[in-house]
């Protein structure tokens, strides 16, 4: 197999030039590489490998994609770059778990669960609080009654941060101040949601690295305590991943899944040059759908995730 065949063409280009090259459009590169050829050769695989690896897709998933392309092409044969590009997109899209949403273009909540409880988790600084603020605003705008729970009672000024977002979105924030029991805050928020007949309760939690066992176990506890207020809650556990994170995101997904069953992913900071390709492998391995993407710091900078659009942007350059 000609994958990672870097011994074949040792172009002595400077790193800087190389980086520039990465920013070139994948499609045009592929077009050049396959001009006049009828099968996928080293050169094409090299280009593919480069674009996928530099998008943080990871070695294993890249190999998987390339294998699938090779198998597909053997069967279907392609005629031009357009077709190869199409095959490629289809194969990558197929790896990403689908969301069970009725209308994937709109922010929506399941009709018969009230309140719909969302618990938001992730490592430090990925954008949990910001995503909650944006989500609250979206739900509020479609006429839903929203309650937020300030469950990050640990990081300095985290409660104050969520309160600002609550004000911006125009929704109430349940809080017990800093250094209080996050499980108690979560319980209170769900309870308030039930009492006030809210449509959705979103609970913020402190960022935690997956290596901190006691903090990870705290998440299980928060979940259990929420269930005392509402037995089938939380209905959604949203793991927020920073789009610029590399392969450690896979470990994050694995470890957070162990302590709370993750049901959905949000990928943030995709307004930068990072591509967030690591979610492809994560979605594939853990069968978790990606629901939202963060594309900025403003309240409207949250979008519903689209597999096709995401893959397209992965294969195109942004700059």
């Amino acid at each position, binding site marked *: 197999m000609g994958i990672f065949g870097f011994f074949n063409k040792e172009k002595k280009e400077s790193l800087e030039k190389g980086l520039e090259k990465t920013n070139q459009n994948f499609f045009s590169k592929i077009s050049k590489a396959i001009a006049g050829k009828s099968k996928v050769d080293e050169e094409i695989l090299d280009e593919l490998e480069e674009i996928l*690896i530099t998008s943080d897709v990871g070695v294993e998933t890249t190999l998987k994609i390339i294998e699938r392309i090779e198998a597909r092409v053997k069967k279907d044969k392609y005629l031009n770059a357009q077709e190869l590009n199409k095959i490629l997109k289809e194969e990558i899209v197929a790896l990403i778990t689908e969301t069970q949403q009725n209308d994937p273009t709109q922010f929506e909540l399941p009709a018969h669960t009230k309140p719909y409880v969302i618990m938001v988790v992730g*490592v430090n600084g990925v954008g949990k609080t910001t995503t909650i603020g944006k989500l609250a605003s979206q739900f509020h705008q479609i006429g839903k009654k929203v309650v937020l729970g300030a469950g990050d009672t640990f990081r300095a000024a985290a409660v104050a941060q969520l309160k600002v977002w609550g004000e911006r979105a125009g929704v109430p924030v349940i809080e017990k101040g800093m250094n209080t029991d996050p499980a108690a805050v979560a319980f209170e928020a769900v309870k308030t949601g039930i009492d006030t007949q809210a449509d959705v309760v979103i609970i913020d939690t402190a960022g935690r690295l997956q290596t901190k066992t006691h903090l990870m176990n705290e998440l299980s506890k928060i979940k259990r305590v929420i269930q005392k207020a509402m037995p089938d809650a939380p209905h959604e556990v949203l793991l927020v991943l920073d789009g610029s994170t590399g392969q*450690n995101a896979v470990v994050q997904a694995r470890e957070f899944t162990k302590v709370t069953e993750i049901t959905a992913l949000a990928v943030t*900071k995709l307004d930068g040059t990072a591509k967030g390709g690591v979610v492809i492998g994560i979605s594939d391995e853990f069968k978790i759908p990606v629901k939202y993407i963060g594309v900025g710091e403003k309240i409207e900078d949250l979008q519903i995730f689209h597999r096709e659009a995401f893959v397209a942007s992965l294969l195109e350059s942004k700059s």
Partner: protein
Amino acid sequence: MFKTLSNRLDKAMKTLKGQGRITDVNIAATMKEIRKALMEADVNYKVAKEITDKIKDEAIGRKVMIDVKPGELLVKIVHEQLMQLMGGTTAEMNLRSDPAVILMTGLQGSGKTTFSAKLANYLKKQGRQVLLVACDVYRPAAIEQLKVNGQAIGVEVYSEPENKNPIAIAQNSIKWAKENNKKIIIIDTAGRLAVDEAMMTEIAQIKTAIQPSEILFVVDAMTGQDAVNTAKSFNDRVNFDGVVLTKLDGDTRGGAALSIRNVVEKPIKFISTGEKVNEPNSFDIFNPDSIARRILNMGDVLKLVEIAQDAFDQQEMEKLNKKLRKNEFDFNDFYSQIQQIKKMGNLKDIISMIPGMGKMLKEVEIDDFSLTPIEAIIQSMTPKERNNPILIDGSRKKRIANGSGTSVQQVNNLIKQFQEMRKMIKKMNDSKGKRFLPNINPFR
């Protein structure tokens, strides 16, 4: 999914052992494994390629393939190379001006605010008069976050909650610091993306306005491939002096560190672990060795390598190497090499790594893998014969066969193969370390 590099090398080496022959395919496969391992550790694609090339050159230069334990020597070389790329020495901050101004910058969520407080605490503990300045006017409650941190470590925080102009706040803070006898000013700024033109212009303007003596680029150690782009963009705009790696208390492999170092050639100065700003061990001076180990996920593997190398008698090895280089390899060396190998145990695995041995063993067809006939033959030679095998004529062969309880045919075989082995060593030497096998061209 995250196989350690040594596991990977073991795998590659197993293929090699299985074939009992060292070819260009083997070494290429090994280099591919190294490169894959680096990329899995988030080392940038291009950087991984460059590094692997360097490792390859080094491996060739040090004749890895004629080493008794090529896999382990290779891991060692990889580690050394990573260390070198990471910059061997620790770099100090420039705090000479009065007051000295340290400007923090980086992406959103990279850990600037937390690290600013840790750095302030570190400097305060050295007896300096430190001031923290809150210039993140955008993120909700960012100013308050710095204030809380400042309080936790007992360092004053300068802020202007009503002022939305970070350039002005930074300038005012310096004036305030001079009036209040603060000697070091640490300026926390808002996180920003390299593609955000307005925000990048802003940080450049802050720099121009306050002329900091030290600019630190703060980066999350979990960052993936994009680390190079971001680091390069920030460096182009503000020409920072050093890098801070944060969140190393996680289990990220931290390949971004290597990529950044490679692309901007600025030293990594500090590492940050943990969320608590007043814990002394949550802040550290950067140590290239530990990050190199981390990227390789080696832990104590390196130590094991060293132990293994010690077990293999260093002096004997050096003597042998010298002789190999001078084409003086004789039956004495052959014999002592066999003894060395026996000392290390696990003969079958190691033996095929000795040039020529794999092939020889196949032809001799020793089922239970016994070196005894070879040893016996060599022992039956006179010292002169061992030094100079050309002396061994027909009658001497008969004598040796009798003495060792073997046949003349077996003695002939051994001598023939020994000569082939010498020829090969000579060829290797002639190629002056450029290639392993002159007639193949392993590296196109």
